[in-house]
Every structure is written in structure tokens, then in C-alpha cells.
């Protein structure tokens, strides 16, 4: 019998209305990278929360080195050497990097914190693993990538030997991802054991030794990565064949729907403009993708188009009408639908029911309201229609509280609401962020269908695969300017990368100024 460092045997966890983990067994060898793969809501996070002591299992047991252990809270997990990098970081925003790392295990003498030793230890770790950080920087000022390195250092500082990474690459740029994967390899070579939750198959193929696949709370199986293929893994995960290519017909561009002229948008973080003198057109029946590394002005550009942010210069026209100063509601009526970047912050009222969220953009229309009173019958009927049409799954149907739904279904709800609403332009910002392959396929299909129905689609994405596969035209943003207007059929990924990193740019600016 092989030696396992952690065994989770026949774990069952039941939530009201759903069996999140049904008799799942997962065994982690020492020094391996073990991927945990599954769709949204398959039970990956629940299983890891059980291991980390956040949930108590309703059945089954956990063993460490063959001995049964009880993990009642994260402190127990920490004592057993289990550390976790959560998908949403657990950092104190106004503390420094060093303070965050030692938080909870501060070395102290007579009640005074001994930061000097701590700093030395942290710097040593940082150097050893190539995790670059500035110990005195405040968390809210540093990049997401660096925040993640802080989370990793937190685990190392606590001398954890079993490291759980919960979808660590969802928030990173391609360069940061490859760095992270290399770091994980280094950990494994040193004898640390890693559980890697993800639904990006490329990353599993690149780094993992074995992979356990869950589907709808049940264990599908554990496979050796070197004996399997991407296609097989995705079939295990989704239960059917998934196409990685986006099927679409030739585009048939029509009239100009959105026209942006010399637009500038101020930045919230620095004094310069985040969007500088940008001009472009989007026609009906085409998907235009804004590509670029996060933080190059995409958020501000979308904010100005949808009305969440004010432009400092330039004009925006929708179907020929000037909407530069229009309210958000007015723009929505004029035909802008918006799938927002942050579905929890903007897209949903999490404490509202699903049906209430589905009419968030339309509750004031005569269909759902008369004399100020909401027609709840009509809302329910409409919600059921959308739930059927867009296959939104939830515990209690239209009356499910949005907060309790899985991320993929929350996103489906937003997409259903925005696509079903009358619109000419669909603005979709990272619509597949944090979704699994099945859901990504679904979102891409919806975007293409929207295009084929003669709408204009503005897609903002950081995923190169998505940019290349879905779009009909690529606009590359770099430092607030559009540096390339490319045809995805003619450009290579390498070339696109050069544009995104600012190494290459077209002479578009003069053309746009003239037009």
C-alpha cells in the first residue's frame, strides 16, 4: 500500500436541498501536485472547506499519515500543517504585507511584537522561492498577483506542508500564471503536497501529477495526468464531449451601433487619464474584443460606455445618438446591455431572490409594474421562462436567494437578464471569469448567438484563447490607448502578446483622429 499524507474517505456533506459531496474519497500523496477538477457547483470548494475545517462533514473521515484526525476549525487545519490560498484572498487591506503574513502567529516578547525576526524569516522565504514581495507595502496598493504571493508566503511562514490552492490562476495574467505554476512545481519537488483546485485543463496538463474529477457532488474518478488527455478530462468533468473551438459563421457586419470618438476617462488611482483619446466603431453582427493585460484602461472604457464612470473628454454615440452624458437607465433603454466584470458587486443583489434579480433592469417597465406596484405574478412567470430558456439551476427555482447559487449559475442569471432585455449592444466584461469549461462553452455560444441575431457585442477579456476564438475583431489596449486593430484570423497569439505588452503598435491613431 502506498503512503498517503492526507486521505479523505467517503466524505459526505449535505446542504439544504443539495448533496454537495456524496461519498467522496480523495487521497493525496506526499510531494505530488493533485488537481481537483469539476464544474462550478460540483463540490470542489465544499470538499476543500471540509479539509480546511470550515465545514464539518456529515459522513466520512479524514486521515493524516493513516491516523484519523478531526478538523473542527482552520486552526486545527493549521496545526496539522494544512494551509489554503482562498479564491478571494483573506488579507487585511490596510495592513502591510509583513503584518498580514505574521497575523495570528506574531512572534512576541512580553507582549511586544518582534517584527525584526519575522521580517528576516519572511525575506528568506521570499528569496528562497522567488516570491517577490515588498514587506512594507500596504495590501490595498499592491497588485493581485503580489497579494497572492503574500497568501502563499503566509502558508510557508506557518510551515505548512499541505498546500491548498483554490482557483489560484483565475485572477492572474498569463505571465503570473506561468510563474505560479513554476513555484508550485518547486514546492512539490521539495516534498510539499499540493491540492490544486481549478477548471483550466491546460494548467492541469502542465503541472499536475494526478487529477480527481468531481461532477454534481459525486466522484467521477482519479487519473494519472500523464495517461490522460484534455478531451478525456473534460468529458469526465462535464459528462459529455466539449468543443474547445467556438463554432460560428462568417460575420455579416451591418450598421455602426456604437461609435466612440476621442474618448478620455480619468483614472481613480492616479492623476493621468486611464483612457486616452480612444476612437473606434462597432457594427451590428460583429463581436469586437478589447484585449490587453488587466489595468490598461479596459474597466474605465467600459465604465464610460455603460455610464458607471464619467468621461473627461470625447463623445459616445449609440445608433447615432449622443449618449456621452446620458444616465445609466437612459443608456439601458436606448439599447445597452451590460454583463459586468464583478458579478457580486454590480451584477446581482445577492440577498434578493433569483426572480427579483432577473428583473433588475426591467422592474419599472409596464410589463412588471403598474401604478408603482410590482406585478409579482408576471415577475414569477418571466423568471420561470428565463430559468427554462437559459437552464439556470438553483435549489428552489425563482425564489432561491441569489447568494446561495453557484458562481456559474449566478453568471447564467445575469446573462439571461441582459440578453433577454431589448438591446442593440451587449457589453460583456470577462463573462467567463471563474467559470468551468461547460459554462464557458455556454457563454461563448450565447455571445455568438447574440451576434448572429444582429446585435453588436463588445467583449473585454484577458484570456488569449477567448480573444482568439470568439472575436471577429480585436482591439488591443495598452496604457489607455488602442494600439492595434487586428483580425483574429490573421494574427498569431505571439503577435497579439507583443501588442499587449506594448512592444508593438499600429499607426491607428491618426486614422482615428481623422475619422
Amino acid at each position, binding site marked *: 500500500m502506498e503512503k498517503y499524507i492526507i486521505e479523505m474517505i*467517503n466524505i459526505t456533506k449535505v446542504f439544504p*436541498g443539495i448533496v454537495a459531496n456524496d461519498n467522496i474519497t480523495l487521497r493525496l500523496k506526499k510531494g505530488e501536485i493533485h488537481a481537483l477538477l469539476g464544474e462550478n457547483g460540483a463540490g470542489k470548494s465544499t470538499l476543500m472547506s471540509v479539509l480546511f475545517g470550515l465545514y464539518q462533514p*456529515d*459522513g*466520512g*473521515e479524514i486521515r493524516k499519515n493513516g491516523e*484519523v484526525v*478531526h478538523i473542527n476549525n482552520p486552526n486545527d487545519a493549521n496545526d496539522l500543517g494544512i494551509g489554503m490560498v482562498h479564491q478571494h484572498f483573506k488579507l487585511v487591506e490596510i495592513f502591510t504585507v509583513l503584518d498580514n503574513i505574521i497575523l495570528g502567529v506574531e512572534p512576541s516578547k512580553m507582549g511586544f511584537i518582534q517584527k525584526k525576526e519575522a521580517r528576516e524569516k519572511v525575506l528568506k522565504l521570499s528569496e528562497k522561492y522567488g516570491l517577490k514581495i515588498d514587506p512594507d507595502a500596504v495590501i490595498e496598493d499592491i497588485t493581485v498577483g503580489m497579494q497572492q504571493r503574500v497568501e502563499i508566503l503566509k502558508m510557508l511562514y506557518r510551515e505548512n506542508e499541505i498546500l491548498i490552492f483554490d482557483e489560484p490562476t483565475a485572477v492572474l495574467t498569463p505571465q503570473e500564471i506561468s510563474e505560479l505554476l513554476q513555484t508550485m512545481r518547486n514546492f512539490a519537488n521539495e516534498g510539499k503536497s499540493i491540492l490544486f483546485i481549478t477548471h483550466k485543463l491546460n494548467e492541469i496538463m502542465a503541472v499536475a501529477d494526478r487529477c480527481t474529477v468531481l461532477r454534481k457532488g459525486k466522484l467521477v474518478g482519479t487519473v494519472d495526468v500523464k495517461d490522460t488527455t484534455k478531451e478525456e478530462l473534460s468529458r469526465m468533468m462535464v459528462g459529455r464531449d466539449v468543443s474547445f473551438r467556438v463554432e460560428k459563421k462568417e460575420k455579416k457586419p451591418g450598421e455602426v451601433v456604437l461609435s466612440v470618438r476621442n474618448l478620455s476617462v480619468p483614472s481613480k488611482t492616479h492623476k493621468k487619464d486611464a483612457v486616452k483619446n480612444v476612437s473606434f466603431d462597432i457594427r451590428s453582427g460583429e463581436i469586437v474584443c478589447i484585449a490587453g493585460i488587466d489595468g490598461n484602461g479596459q474597466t474605465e472604457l467600459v465604465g464610460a460606455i455603460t*455610464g*458607471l464612470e464619467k468621461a473627461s473628454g470625447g463623445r459616445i454615440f449609440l445608433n447615432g445618438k449622443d449618449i456621452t452624458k446620458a*444616465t*445609466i*437607465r*437612459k*443608456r*439601458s433603454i436606448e439599447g445597452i446591455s*451590460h454583463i*459586468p466584470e464583478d458579478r457580486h*458587486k*454590480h*451584477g*446581482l*443583489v*445577492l*440577498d*434578493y431572490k433569483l426572480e*427579483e434579480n432577473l428583473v*433588475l*433592469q426591467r*422592474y*419599472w417597465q409596464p410589463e412588471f*409594474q403598474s401604478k*408603482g*406596484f*410590482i406585478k*409579482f405574478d408576471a415577475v414569477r412567470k418571466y423568471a420561470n421562462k428565463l430559468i427554462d430558456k437559459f437552464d439556470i*439551476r*438553483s*435549489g*428552489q*427555482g425563482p*425564489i432561491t436567494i441569489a447568494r446561495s447559487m453557484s458562481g456559474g449559475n449566478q453568471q447564467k442569471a445575469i446573462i439571461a437578464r441582459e440578453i433577454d432585455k431589448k438591446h442593440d449592444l451587449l457589453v460583456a466584461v470577462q463573462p467567463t471569469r471563474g467559470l468551468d469549461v461547460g459554462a464557458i462553452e455556454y457563454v461563448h455560444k450565447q455571445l455568438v448567438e447574440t451576434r448572429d441575431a444582429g446585435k453588436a457585442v463588445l467583449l473585454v477579456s484577458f484570456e488569449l484563447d477567448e480573444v482568439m476564438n470568439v472575436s471577429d475583431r480585436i482591439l488591443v489596449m495598452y496604457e489607455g490607448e488602442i494600439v492595434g486593430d487586428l483580425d483574429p484570423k490573421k494574427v498569431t497569439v505571439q503577435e497579439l502578446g507583443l501588442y499587449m505588452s506594448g512592444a508593438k503598435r499600429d499607426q491607428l491613431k491618426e486614422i482615428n483622429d481623422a475619422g
Partner: protein
Amino acid sequence: MQDKNDFTRNKRFSFKQIAAKLNFSSLTSALLAILLGLIFGFFVMLFAMPANALAGFRYIAFGGFSRLGDVFYFATPILMTGLSVGFAFKMGLFNIGASGQYTMGMFFALYAGFMWDLPNGIHWIAAVLAGMVGGMLWGFIPGFFKALLNVNEVITSIMFNYIGMYLVDMWVRGSSTMYNSTITRTNYLPQSAQIPSLGITGSNVNYGIVLAILIGIILHIVLQKTTFGYELKATGYNKHAAEYAGMKGKTNIIITMMIAGALSGLGGAFMILAPSGIPGSSMTYEPVNIIAANGFNGIAVALLGNSNPIGIIFSALFISHLQRGGTLTNLVGYKPEIIDVVIAIIIYFSAFAMIMNAAIGEFIKKRIKKTDSDIIEDTTEELNVTDASNNNSKEAE
């Protein structure tokens, strides 16, 4: 496919499930909070005067029933300020300025009562409406600052509590029609300005409480059924999503604060315009530079009522019941100050226990679920084995 089946099954039971859930999280935990508060209050009474604690506590708990008219009368103002705080809270605003709005409403009502010469039957209605306008004005100011300049409404409304109170005391003292300097109180209001009595002898209870309860029910309907309520709650839960959906956040903040102010103002009007049991007299106001306690009691009422208008109606009646019962405890020798302390402890302990309701509810739910799952596990042999091993390992600990 299986999911779909589950879904239809759930749908059939959903009503029952929701009802059970709602009952649990609000009513049950409110009752639990009250029970905890009462127990704690009893200990304080025991500490203050051990011999008479039981008799005194009996007055607090049941004394109100013998003076129901007064319970309803004194419930009226705290019901209104409770609705005011609770309503603003639904939008995520903390209206700590209920006191100032209440005082302002009372002054406007007084002014209308003394200065306007209107026929019977209309005068009191006009005075009540004037009180509403006064409170509305005092709610508008913090709302305006919050919406347009992003000034925290807590700070503004605390300051306007003082501004309102000093202004009103100054205005009252400055008017010889309103103020009688020999008794240092306001004069008696004309009969026509007093709200018609409900006709219970020995009590001031009047149509004010009927109106207040009606207003509570209307607010409930506004919050649950209207687009305005939908926007209000959406903004309270997630103002970013409300902005994204094109709701007019700034206008809604101002409207909400105006409504909250109007509610408190009505509370002040209902209080001062109440008819007196003695013919020819009326309620009076003494300008002594003290911030109206009824405003702050409204915060406790709203907390205990979980900001739900219907809940607030009951919590206001409950707190008034305690206060009326409390006044009887001096029959067994308790000083009024001790009683104020005990009642404050009961109210605030209950309110704080209410805040903890999530934790308490969770605890009890867990217990219930445990017994439920035990029953389920008994039915299947296979599960029994794992259950037994679980129990064993627990015993080993």
C-alpha cells in the same frame, strides 16, 4: 434531468419551507431575545432589592395589562420613531436623528395647534400634517448632505438632533402664546387641535395609535410590493448593483430620509396632540434642553422589530408595555431610576440578542437538524454503521 425533478419537487414544498424559515429567523429569535432580556432584567432587580424582586418583576411583566390604554398611548411615539429608524435602515441608512425629527415634528404640531384657527375636526388633522412636514424637513437635511456631498448621515443627524432641540426650545420660550413662564411649560392646546380620544377612561389613548399602526402596515406594503420598495431594499443590500441597474440612488436617499423624518415628526405630533383625560387641559412640553428619549428608543424598537414594519408595531407595543408595568414597581419600593435601568437593560439586551439572532438561530437549527438526521439514519442500516463509528470516535474524545 434529475435536477429538474428536484426542482419541481422543491417548488411544491417551497411555500411551507419559506414560511418555516421566515418564522424562525425573525419571530422566534425575537421571542428568544425578549426572554433573555427579561431573565437578565430580573437578575438586576434581584441585585437591587432581593426581597421584592419577584413582586416587582411581576409588575414589569404583567402590570401593563391592567393599563392597556396607556400602553397603546405611550407606544405611539416610539412606534413612529421605530418605523423611522427601521425604514431608513432598509436602505442602509442609520437615522440616528429620529430625536431631532421628532422634536421638530412636535414643534410644528404645537405651532399649528396654537397659531392656526381652524374648525373642529380639521384643526387636529392640520396640526398632525404640520408635524409631519416638520420632521420631513429635519430628515431632508441629512439626506441632502449624504446624497450630494457624501457626508455621513450619522454625523449630520446627531448634530441636527442638537440644533433641532435648541431651536425648538428657543422658539417655544420666545412665544408668549405657546409658553407659560410661570409653570415653565407650554400652555394648554385648544380642544380642536387635540386628536380625538378612543374613549377609554383614565387614559390618553387616541386615534394616533390607530393611525400609527395603519402607517406601519402601509410601509410594509410599500417595502414589499412597490417598485420604490424594491429599489430601496436593493440599494440597502448592494448600492453598486442598484447604480448599475440605473436606479437613482441620490434621489432615493433624499426621499428615504424625508419619509423617515416625516415618520418621526408624526411621532412627535401624535405625542403632543394627544387629548388629556382632564377636560380643558392638554399635553404640554417643557423646554429643558434635553434630547427627546423617544427618538433613541426608536432605535431599540427598530432593532427588536428587525426593521420590519410589522415587527416594529409589536416591538413598540412590547416596550411600551414594559415601561407602563415598570411605573407600577414603585408600589413595592423600587426607585424610578432603578426601573429605568432595568427596562433599559431588558430593551437593549433584547435588541442586542436580536442582533445575535443569526448565531442563536444557527445554533438551534443545528440542534434540530441533528435530531432530524438521527431519525433518517436510523432507517438505513448502512448509514447506521457510519453513525455508530462517529459516535464512538466522539466518545473517545
